[in-house]
């Protein structure tokens, strides 16, 4: 199908975007890379009165070092992140997940901010950013505020963004020393949305016990799901095989994923457990071989 008619604006600055949003609110929709929004427009699942194309906005697509971590402009293309040496060097969890997002043609257009703002419950980046403890900078005419991913993702395609706000920047803190991470997913074909995915990061203390654990599942709930109980069970443990297996079982406990034409709820739950166990083992192996201090 073809999209319903809309008015179109292509502002050049964030201030102009915020002015348009302040005036039009819910009537306006921001167009980032368009790889999720345009299909919805083509299917007429959405019919915004005004489309605000932010592809020409200056100053929102840089990848910059910030306090040992990274500051990533919301309009940074997923393909640019994939080619970034800073990401490859110091953010292995992100680097591992990026090639799993759709196909390279989609990543050439798709943006990090677009993916996070769209908040598809099976997408990779929301889970990865949650696992990494990223902070999202939201700006409106009224104010600028910074929220955590746990605050940002509210439900199915639903975020904490107000109608007059734009996600402008993502701040990713550096991995702690002695950390290892892994991202795994199952999908029907390469590039398909994940049936289930998991982002894991483990941090060891000086005696090789678990100092911190981050486990976030995608595809099993309406939003990225932090496996808090499993995380708590691992902290302080020696990370034995039994510890990892137990944590994976806790991560899959009480899951209530959807059954649909692609997979049953039972399959998704079992896959969540199996993937979490594998991802924990991989992350632990990497944490044990990593350098003592972050790059």
């Amino acid at each position, binding site marked *: 199908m*073809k999209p319903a008619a809309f008015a179109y604006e292509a502002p050049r600055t964030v201030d102009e975007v915020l002015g348009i949003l302040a005036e039009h609110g819910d009537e306006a929709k921001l167009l980032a890379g368009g790889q999720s929004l345009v299909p919805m427009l083509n299917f007429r699942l959405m019919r915004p009165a005004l489309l605000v194309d932010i592809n020409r906005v200056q100053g929102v697509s840089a990848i910059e070092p910030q306090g040992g971590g990274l500051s990533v402009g919301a309009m940074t293309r997923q393909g640019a992140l994939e080619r970034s040496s800073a990401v490859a060097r110091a953010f292995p969890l992100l680097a591992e997940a990026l090639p799993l997002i759709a196909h390279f043609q*989609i990543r050439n257009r798709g943006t990090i901010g677009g993916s996070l703002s769209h908040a598809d419950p099976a997408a990779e980046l929301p889970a990865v950013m949650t696992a990494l403890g990223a902070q999202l900078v939201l700006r409106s005419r009224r104010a600028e505020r910074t929220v955590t991913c746990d605050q940002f993702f509210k439900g199915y395609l639903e975020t904490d963004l107000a109608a007059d706000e734009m996600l402008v920047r993502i701040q990713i803190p550096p991995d702690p020393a002695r950390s290892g991470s892994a991202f795994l997913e199952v999908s029907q074909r390469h590039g398909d949305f994940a049936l289930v995915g998991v982002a894991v990061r483990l941090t060891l203390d000086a005696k090789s016990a678990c100092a911190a654990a981050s486990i976030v599942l995608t595809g099993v709930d309406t939003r990225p799901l932090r496996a808090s109980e499993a995380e708590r069970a691992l902290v302080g443990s020696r990370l034995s095989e039994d510890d990892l297996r137990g944590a994976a079982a806790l991560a899959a406990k009480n899951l209530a994923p959807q059954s649909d034409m692609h997979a049953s709820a039972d399959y998704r739950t079992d896959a969540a457990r199996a993937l979490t166990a594998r991802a924990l083992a991989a992350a632990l192996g990497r944490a044990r071989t990593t350098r003592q201090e972050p790059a």
Partner: protein
Amino acid sequence: MEKKTVRMRVNGKPCEVSVEPRKLLADVLREDLGLTGTHVGCEHGVCGACTIQLDGEAVRSCLMFGVQAEGAELATVEGLAQEGQLSALQDSFSEHHALQCGFCTAGILMSLDSYMREHPRASESELRVALSGNLCRCTGYRNIVRAACAVAGVSAKKESDG
């Protein structure tokens, strides 16, 4: 809705069209510029038939609006042959019988042309991943992989299938 004037370069030539904002870039290419080599399949970014190059990068032309191409440099399958000579990739597709109905071919050529410019010596498995964003319902992919491998200078595994 009011039409907007869009100026861009397509296959090296300057073009100007006047289009509604909601008109997909794929439809602008086909209907306003007569470049019907770009095919429209699923209209939601999955099949890859409409893949073109935007400033050298492979993108879905069904997931962009024509108005977004203002000032852009676009390449479509019509631009691959130079002075009546097929590109090496097109030649290899012909040589290896890498198409049957041909509906997907333009998108596959534009994807591979862009990918292989960055990865001229890609392995068979890398080429298969690069091809995974383009659906072909006739060939089973085997001859497409062979054609791509021949250009990359690697030989496709005999027993492997799509």
